[in-house]
């Protein structure tokens, strides 16, 4: 069944006495609010306002954006442990300041993706698998836990804590973030004490944007309100219509369309305001570009369609152009930053012709971008520019330098700590992040690199992520994992008829040869 074609022509509505809860979306980084309604199966609210929990008149057609329409994807029937069945509706919260009743294609399916024995969500892995005779076969938890624990213990005793490497998810959201993350940290850091830790989408145990932290920036120095106030919004490596949909649709689009002009005038009086301009730096022509053009008009959208991997040259060139034209924020530089001379001697020497060749961007586009970011609105008022970036910038071999370049651009132009400005990712996850301290060094060890070189760890524990899908140097990493794990599988196959003792010995013997379990 496709999620997107339910084919149903009615949904049950929550009765007036349905239980209801507020929650936050468990998907992306925006943090939209949702209302959950729960009531016994077999019972339904009536169409009249007093007959249902939404206080809506379903005997009539609801107007657009009513915020009380339940799509088929928002409803499900769940079974509790004692066998009682309940209707569940997860509806976008129209009173939430983030989404105002709006939802993305992800958030709209919270009901749909709940576990239900008679829906596709019933398709779950319920028992552990072990290699036997070349196949992964189901086994009991007792056998799998004993087997795993004995090998981990043997590695720990023989080679020490760093022989156990891990790559674990650290999201949780509705799935129990606090508990999951705490248990993972307790086991690997307090219990085992390994430094060989990494997070689902990166090769080490660090922030994805630690260059920003090193420069002294808070992780999220802007609020969604800044997107409503900015003169210019810069999106780098972010397709926000599709991936931070509600941040884009509810907070950036109204600024691009001029809908927030009254709010801008009231909040920031004494300076000129216009609908925002937007610069989108992305090698692809994305849906975000198309939507921005439709809302703001092509004249107010600058799409810098750079060649892959040329962000640093582009960003440093923008810094250089801005500095040469005197559009930088001298006061901010003097009072809020240090090492400016070093920055001048390095970033500001970026050769502009070289940048045009590297990036494929035209000279006039580069100048226009510099103007939109930093050319003051008047003698007394600077432009307010909000710079936001995502995976296109933060996932790459030059992660640190990418982020450093964009942070430097923001510092140069004073676009931090003032209304309508900021420089950060588009958000953070609802991780429920809480763990014992990482026992390793700073900067942390690049676990994937160690694996590629064939050193160190004997065990690579992967949980809730695709290790190859979220690393920097994917192909060598994949091949290394494949080669080293296949040796263990062969060792297990050679004793597939043997006892548990035989199989543990086979694995440990293989591990001595520098393989991965």
């Amino acid at each position, binding site marked *: 069944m496709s999620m997107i074609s339910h084919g*149903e*022509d*009615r949904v049950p509505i929550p009765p007036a006495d349905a239980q209801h809860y507020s929650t936050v979306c468990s998907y992306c980084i925006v943090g939209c609010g949702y209302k959950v309604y729960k009531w016994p199966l077999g019972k339904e609210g009536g169409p009249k306002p007093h007959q249902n929990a939404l206080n809506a008149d*379903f005997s009539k*057609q609801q107007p657009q*954006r009513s915020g009380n*329409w339940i799509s088929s994807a928002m409803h499900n029937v769940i079974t509790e442990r004692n066998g009682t069945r309940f209707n569940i509706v997860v509806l976008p919260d129209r009173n939430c300041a983030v989404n105002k009743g709006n939802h993305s294609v992800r958030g709209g399916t919270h009901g749909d993706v709940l576990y239900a024995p008679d829906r596709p969500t019933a398709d779950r892995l319920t028992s552990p698998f072990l290699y036997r005779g070349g196949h992964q076969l189901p086994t009991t938890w007792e056998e799998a836990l004993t087997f795993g624990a004995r090998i981990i213990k043997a590695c720990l005793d023989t080679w020490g804590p760093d022989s156990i490497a891990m790559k674990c998810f650290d999201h949780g959201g509705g799935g129990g973030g606090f508990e999951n993350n705490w248990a993972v940290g307790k086991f690997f850091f307090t219990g085992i004490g390994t430094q060989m830790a990494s997070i689902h989408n990166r090769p080490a145990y660090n922030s994805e944007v630690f260059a920003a932290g090193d420069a002294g920036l808070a992780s999220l120095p802007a609020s969604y309100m800044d997107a409503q106030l900015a003169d210019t919004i810069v999106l780098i490596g972010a397709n926000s219509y599709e991936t931070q949909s509600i941040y884009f649709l509810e907070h950036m689009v109204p600024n691009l369309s001029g809908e927030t002009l009254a709010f801008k005038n009231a909040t920031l009086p004494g300076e000129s305001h216009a609908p925002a301009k937007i610069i989108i730096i992305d090698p692809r022509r994305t849906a975000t570009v198309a939507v921005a053009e439709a809302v703001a008009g092509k004249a107010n959208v600058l799409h810098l369609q750079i060649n892959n991997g040329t962000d640093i040259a582009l960003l440093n060139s923008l810094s250089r152009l801005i500095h040469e034209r005197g559009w930088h924020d001298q006061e901010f530089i003097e009072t809020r930053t240090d090492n400016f001379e070093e920055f001048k001697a390095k970033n500001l020497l970026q050769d502009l012709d070289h940048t045009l060749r590297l990036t494929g961007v035209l000279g006039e586009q580069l100048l226009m971008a510099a103007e939109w970011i930093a050319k003051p609105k008047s003698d007394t008022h600077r432009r307010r520019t909000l710079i936001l970036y995502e995976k296109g910038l933060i996932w790459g071999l030059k992660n640190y330098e990418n982020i450093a370049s964009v942070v430097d651009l923001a510092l140069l132009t004073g676009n931090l700590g003032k209304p309508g400005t900021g420089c950060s990712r588009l958000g953070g996850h609802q991780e429920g992040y809480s763990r014992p301290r990482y026992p390793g060094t700073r900067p942390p060890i690049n676990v994937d690199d160690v694996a590629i070189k064939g050193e160190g760890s004997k065990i690579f524990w992967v949980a809730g992520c695709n290790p190859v899908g979220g690393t920097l140097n994917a192909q060598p990493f994949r091949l290394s994992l494949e080669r080293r794990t296949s040796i263990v599988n062969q060792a297990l196959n050679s004793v597939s008829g043997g006892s548990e003792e035989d199989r543990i010995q086979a694995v440990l013997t293989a591990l001595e040869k520098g393989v991965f379990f």
Partner: protein
Amino acid sequence: MSDLSRRHFLKLGACLAGGACAGTVLPMAEASQEAKEASTLTTTLPYPRLKLVNISELEIRHEMRLTYPDVDSPISLIKFGTRILHGIGPEGDIVAFSRYCTHMGGHLQFKADTGAFHCPLHFAMFDAQKSGLMVIGQATDNLPQVELEMDDRGDIYAFGVKGLIYGRQANVLA
């Protein structure tokens, strides 16, 4: 195979795949017979059977704006001129859809050049030639498709809607 409708073709395919229909006579139905087939919708709602238009009034790729199952539910009926998914009529090219976006009820605009419905609210797109499939956007369901049939005189009737119409708890109002 050419005069096998897609619906029959799929049935045949299911039979072959299931391996349980050997010896069944192929349903070589004509279009008019196919039109009389019962709805695949398992519904208890009392949909009206409503005459929408006569086929002779339709222009190719031209949207005809109507309402169904009641006056508060705008729909668009389009004849594409080439056979499309779940289309009816002699060419298998006539379809009708709800004109309310299944995201937040935006009033959809049909564009002949894309063959799709476009939402002005949050820019969703639904392909009218692929049974209302969402091409891009934030909706969680395809566009509800009006179930149509045509009689011998070329009169086109609506008799149901597959998928929940925006803004309703049930497609037929209480």
